[in-house]
């Protein structure tokens, strides 16, 4: 991969956010994923050069964190929560059924490159269990059928919108750019809060 001068300028702006430049390594890795789709060796070399580190130092950081992928993932990366609460509430059945449906296992990608699958740990949405994340957007209260429909939609370029998120689902690369701190201007879309988040407030207004 080669990187445009615009890419380089963006990287410089990421580095400039921090008092010490090494702190920029994580957003830079997210940024490489936004361009290349995963953490490529070219990306590692560029980050190393920018931060005056050895490539081994950048690789050591990259391989520590599960969100940095050493191989390509799908345009839509589907994470099924299989931590205890979600697993018990149906995450195990969801994972099995979508894995069978797609014919791929954990950390694998469909042949068309559209969908990849990952068993993920708790994603801080337990009151919406079972939870599925696609490109790290919330899909709440899922069922085996809803996730099959979701991946079918994704494969035909028409994925459903997240439950609490933007009006339409963005791609893996697009969302990786957001995590690098590059705004896509979509913060205003979507609900303030889902119904379970507001339940206590609602009851208190009813005097309960």
């Amino acid at each position, binding site marked *: 991969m080669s990187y445009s001068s615009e890419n380089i300028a963006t990287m410089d702006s990421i580095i400039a956010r921090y008092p010490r430049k*090494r702190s920029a390594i994580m957003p830079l890795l997210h940024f490489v994923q936004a361009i290349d789709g995963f953490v490529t060796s070219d990306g590692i070399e560029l980050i190393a050069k920018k931060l005056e580190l050895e490539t081994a130092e950048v690789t050591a950081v990259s391989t520590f964190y599960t969100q940095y992928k050493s191989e390509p993932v799908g345009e839509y990366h589907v994470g099924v929560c299989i931590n205890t609460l979600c697993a018990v509430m149906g995450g195990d059945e969801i994972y099995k059924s979508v894995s069978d449906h797609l014919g791929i296992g954990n950390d694998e990608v469909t042949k068309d490159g559209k969908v990849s699958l990952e068993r993920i740990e708790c994603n801080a949405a337990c009151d919406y269990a079972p939870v599925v994340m696609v490109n790290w957007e919330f899909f709440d209260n899922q*069922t085996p059928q809803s996730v099959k429909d979701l991946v079918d939609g994704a494969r035909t370029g028409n994925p459903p919108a997240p439950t609490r998120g933007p009006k339409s689902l963005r791609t893996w690369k697009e969302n990786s750019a957001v995590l690098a701190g590059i705004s896509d201007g979509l913060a205003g879309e979507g609900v303030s809060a889902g119904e379970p988040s507001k339940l206590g407030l609602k009851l208190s207004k009813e005097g309960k």
Partner: protein
Amino acid sequence: MSKLSPVLSAHWDEADSFTIDGYRRNGGYNAAKTALDMDADAVIQLVKDSGLRGRGGAGFPTGMKWGFIPQNDGKDHYLVVNADESEPGTCKDMPLLMANPHSLIEGIIIASYAIRANYAFIYLRGEVVHVYRRVQQAIQDAYAAGLLGKNINGKGFDLELVLHAGAGAYICGEETALLDSLEGFRGQPRLRPPFPAIAGLYARPTVVNNVESIASVPAIIANGVEWFQSMGTEKSKGFTLYSLSGHVKNPGQFEAPLGITLRELLEMAGGMREGHELKFWTPGGSSTPMFTQEHLDVPLDYEGVGAAGSMLGTKALQIFDETTCVVRAVLRWTEFYKHESCGKCTPCREGTWWLVQALKELEAGRGTSADLDKLLDIVDNIAGRSFCALADGAASPIVSSMKYFRTEYQRHLDLGSCPFDPIASTLFAGVHS
């Protein structure tokens, strides 16, 4: 009168609650103005006097933490907000940041002013893109409104605020691992002392606080210490977010004074799902020893939960009914700890691996009762033997489940298989048993 006390969540039902206009309409940023007119030490004293304790799990007094920062030391100080919420069951900070990010930013302005920090960071877990968007927009809007940056409110106070996405490592919720991660290293805990208050980010005095702790500060400044102390119990003051998930009719967030009980919260959640009864629950995430039906009336404050043998933790109440196999639940949590062990300390790295092996055998009904003792023996050899508390967290579900449900482990061995039907536990199994 309602037993609930929405403060942080008071406007989550407004469509624009996450915007700066929505926040200001409800009095937002007045507390920052008040605080910036105060002496910085007086702000610290006020937070100390309020009795606010850390809402991220450990319950350490927030004002005292601020007071540990050496002043007039000629060094840069930093405030780092821990938004790496990932303790299993914990789901309060993400909805808070999605619906009300400005409460955190206002708290950051106040806290940074108090500890004399001119640089603050929000370390947000990376797997929540829409939360990132909301916080990022809120920061941009706060800068545009002159609430961040140079000479805030014309008071001569400068503050830069940086949002930093993590990348999927639970251990970065541990404050020293978080600091290593933020410095650009693998997120592995540091040996203490020195504590972050002396040598934190870039070896400078640093306060690390949970999202909810910092977001609670503006309300305390605005309404006063007496108001805050009118809620809660003797040593656990104020309001907090309780998160109910699992086999209840209506899961969700309930903001209430500290000391409410699960019996009261369950009633608000509509009770257990139809036709089922409570079997076990966690008071504050998977790292806190589990409770059973006999703990329904334990006051959910730091002391009450501690006296009953667990920890208040993150107030993540994961509720499981009688269809749930406790061995399966514990195995899955243990797999989590194995996956998330950073690998730095041998007892944790190797021990969690062995615990998974042992529990897999037990869940499948293979082994003898001697293996149950072996399980506890492994736990003894990892708990309290590492730099951080991850291994202690791994021990909690095992030790507590063996305490209350040893016969259920034994039943797996007697039958040679798991006696439970996992489908019966699912949300889509329907509400009938």
